[in-house]
């Protein structure tokens, strides 16, 4: 497990992916930092550009583009200044990548194209819109819903 002083930046996350770590394990660690451990240091998590290997495999290149799209998407959504490196035109796929089970089915592809946020779609990645759903926000949304219900009940009694 990562020690407490470790910052799981996107650059480090991509490096781990290139070294053979499963992408969603590395990205999961990044998400833990983004949504919990280091949520007050988000700009730091994304400022360093990812480093492409000299001759990236197709898979490594796809994940590089995914990382760039993720940083743009997350920065926009959470009002963090977006680092310039993500706009490098290099981070673009020439062929569409549909990342979902059964993605060969036209109806699945149509759904992914409809749902995928723009920073991914613009780079030819179609993955839907739930890739950064996480337990921290889910728990908080649930807490707020419960609070609203309780408050509503109190108001209706008075």
């Amino acid at each position: 497990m990562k020690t407490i002083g470790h910052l799981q930046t996107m650059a480090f996350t991509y490096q781990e992916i290139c070294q053979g770590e499963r992408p969603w394990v590395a990205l999961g660690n990044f998400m833990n930092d983004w949504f919990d451990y280091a949520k007050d240091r988000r700009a730091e998590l994304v400022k360093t550009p990812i480093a492409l290997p000299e001759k990236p495999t197709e898979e490594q290149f796809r994940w590089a583009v995914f990382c760039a799209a993720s940083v743009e998407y997350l920065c926009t959504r959470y009002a963090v200044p977006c680092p310039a490196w993500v706009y490098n035109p290099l981070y673009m796929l020439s062929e569409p990548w549909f990342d979902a089970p059964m993605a060969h089915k036209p109806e699945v592809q149509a759904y992914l194209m409809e749902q995928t946020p723009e920073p991914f779609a613009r780079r030819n990645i179609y993955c839907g819109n739930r890739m950064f759903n996480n337990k921290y926000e889910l728990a908080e949304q649930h807490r707020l819903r419960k609070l609203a219900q309780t408050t509503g009940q109190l108001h209706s009694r008075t």
Partner: protein
Amino acid sequence: MQRQEMEQYLAELGQALEQQGVQQPVRILLIGGAFMLTQMSSNRVTNDIDVLLSDIDDPTTSPLYQTFKMAARIVARQNNIPLTWINDVIGDFLRDVSKIPQGTLWRTYGLLQVYIPEADYILALKLLAGRQKDKEDIQLLCQQLHINTRIHAQQVVDRYIPDKQVQQINNLDKTLGILFP
């Protein structure tokens, strides 16, 4: 976190609970990646250990919960790892929306008893979440549980998360549509 590491931290948590003067066993239910790691695929890793505390209904008023968090902090300090190495942040949500199974006792570390839920409960949670990162786990669980149709998958979710509004908010229909087109 790998399996050996995880078991070491849980053993330390059991010791820390004893040091905190806990008198009766504390039961936790392993969910998420920790379940997958211990029950399905020992070569994978998990980011943290997601658990449900079986004996605690309301963490805000439970003295046992405070003791548990203190013991978890001791383990974090001993190993220089984040406080959320063992994570129950999702507990309140799951207690409210799902029928939590009792599970089967898997390990005992001093006063810490670790329970494992039925695999279909984990599948139901992962189908509800519908995230990319769960894709492989869902495929593995469906394979193990012989779930090949959308109807069967829906039945599994209905068993544990019967509230249709919760299913709808979480786009279960779309998730099942992608998995079983």
